[in-house]
């Protein structure tokens, strides 16, 4: 996907731009109705009051205050909100690091070590096929492996390495991270592979002719030139993990908190203004992370 809208042929005939707008109108309307207005409503409702039955229009900071209640007091540890953010950020960081290392390695192998382009396509498609099956199915497929009587425990016990089944394999931080890596490494591989394929191969030859070692070439040539892919992949993985409640719910045995889960629970109790205030805070955090990442690269130019 390499294009910029500016480089597309512009209309030669005057009046075309009006026709273009009619063509883009339904598309634009969908995003206005189901993206922009809902976002604006979240911000608006986050300042509303509510009781058990209904939303009460108004302007109050109550929701934000109650979210951060007790956070100013550092003496008895972190408050619930900060703890939840800490745990969510921890998962994001761990998953980001692991998917980045695996994604980069796999993309590097595919882009630079597989020689025939037919084989390259075949192996690439092989990596993307699991993406097309249901996420919940891919999550629960770990149960027969990691469960108390699962394959891993059976094997370890059969080899007499452990006496009793290992309990922390399933419904734990471990299984949550594992499931995230299993589900979303694809989001790293595809953009990194895409930017690696666009690297001019003669640059690598030049590096090795100038006497660079394999590692030097990797670090000084390939990593900087795949930066765009790395950033795009990172944005995907981090925003998905930050907002997730399904994976953490299913793989954490409904025991681990996350911001997404808090929002979901508050919605189910019809505490929309509270959920909206949480969503606004989450949005601010995610935007700050993305802003930090995009300082490193101009995505608009690269897509």
């Amino acid at each position: 996907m390499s294009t910029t809208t500016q480089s597309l042929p512009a209309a030669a005939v005057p009046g075309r731009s009006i026709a273009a707008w009619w063509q883009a109108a339904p598309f634009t309307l969908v995003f206005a109705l189901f993206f922009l207005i809902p976002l604006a409503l979240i911000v608006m409702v986050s300042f509303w009051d509510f009781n058990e039955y209904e939303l009460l229009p108004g302007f109050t900071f109550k929701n934000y205050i109650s979210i951060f209640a007790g956070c100013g007091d550092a003496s008895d540890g972190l408050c619930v909100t900060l703890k939840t953010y800490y745990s969510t950020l921890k998962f994001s960081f761990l998953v980001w690091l692991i998917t980045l290392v695996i994604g980069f390695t796999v993309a590097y192998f595919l882009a630079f070590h597989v020689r025939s382009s037919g084989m390259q396509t075949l192996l690439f498609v092989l990596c993307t096929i699991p993406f097309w099956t249901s996420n919940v199915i891919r999550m629960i497929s770990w149960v027969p492996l990691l469960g108390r009587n699962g394959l891993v425990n059976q094997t370890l016990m059969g080899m007499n390495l452990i006496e009793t089944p290992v309990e922390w394999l399933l419904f734990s931080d471990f299984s949550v991270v594992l499931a995230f890596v299993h589900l979303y490494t694809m989001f790293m591989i595809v953009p990194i592979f895409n930017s690696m394929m666009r690297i001019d191969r003669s640059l690598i030859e030049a590096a090795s002719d100038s006497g660079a070692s394999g590692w030097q070439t990797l670090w000084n040539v390939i990593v900087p030139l795949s930066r765009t892919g790395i950033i795009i992949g990172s944005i995907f993985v981090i925003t998905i993990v930050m907002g997730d409640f399904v994976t953490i719910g299913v793989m954490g045995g409904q025991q681990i908190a996350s911001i997404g889960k808090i929002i979901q629970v508050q919605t189910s109790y019809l505490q929309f203004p509270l959920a909206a205030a949480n969503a606004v805070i989450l949005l601010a955090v995610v935007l700050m992370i993305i802003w930090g990442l995009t300082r490193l690269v101009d995505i608009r130019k690269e897509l």
Partner: protein
Amino acid sequence: MKVRESRPASFWPLAIVFSLFVLFMYGPMFVIFILSFQGPEGGLTFPMRGVSLHWFAKLAEGLGVVDIGAALWRSLGLGVAVMLCTVVLSVLAGLAFRKRLAGGNTLFFIVVASLIMPSIIVSLGIGLEFRLIDNGIKAALEWLGMESALEGYGTSLGLFTSALGAHLTWTLPFGLLIMFAVFNRFNPAYEEAARDLGSTPWQGFAHVVLPLIAPSVVGIGMFGFTLSWDEIARTSQAIGDVNTLPLELQGLTSTVTTPSIYALGTLTTVVSFVVMGITLALVWALGRRGQGRPG
């Protein structure tokens, strides 16, 4: 031609890492496909106790209070609707972006923002929007004094209103990016030729552009359907009273403790692959037809 060089020393370790990765991707899935064919005595883990279609039969009878069949049809219906909307709207927007489009940059920015927005936020926003619309409609009905209509009114949240919109915020960005990739490689000379020969814009589109981009359009349709078919996070707050199959499935993970749930997993995966298979066959057929033509 270059002489075939020997493999660099890093090839084999990397090849092993890649194989392990593929095993990691596919291994667990194959485990549940196998376990879904357990005999009636089988449980959630190995060893296999017999081989049968017992758990598929159980699935057909229904799991607890959940009507799997109805959820499956709802998801299929929604998937088809999302697919059609994604194809039509993406192609139209793709055509629009080829011309000078005032505000095109802003629109593109919004589309990318929608793609990377945490799904729970989009979902919550759409849920809120439709609840506020509900309040508005109820207030209007009350004001108009239409008591009977007011009592019969449920909610505007639904499969083909809020859920459809929620899915489109996820599928349309993919559709537009694919259209960009398509038109980036598109040679406008064919269109100009058609225009020079006196075709109307519609004829030029229907007889020249559309056949050339047809395989990609089919691909966009596949993206639309499969992304919708598996979607949970954006649907969760925007669905109303009934659930789609993935949402039911998510609920079942904590209540169902028989291999029926693996059977359901196998079944939904089969649907995904059938859709992919049909799509690839169509793309292949369209590509062949395109090649067979002169010019």
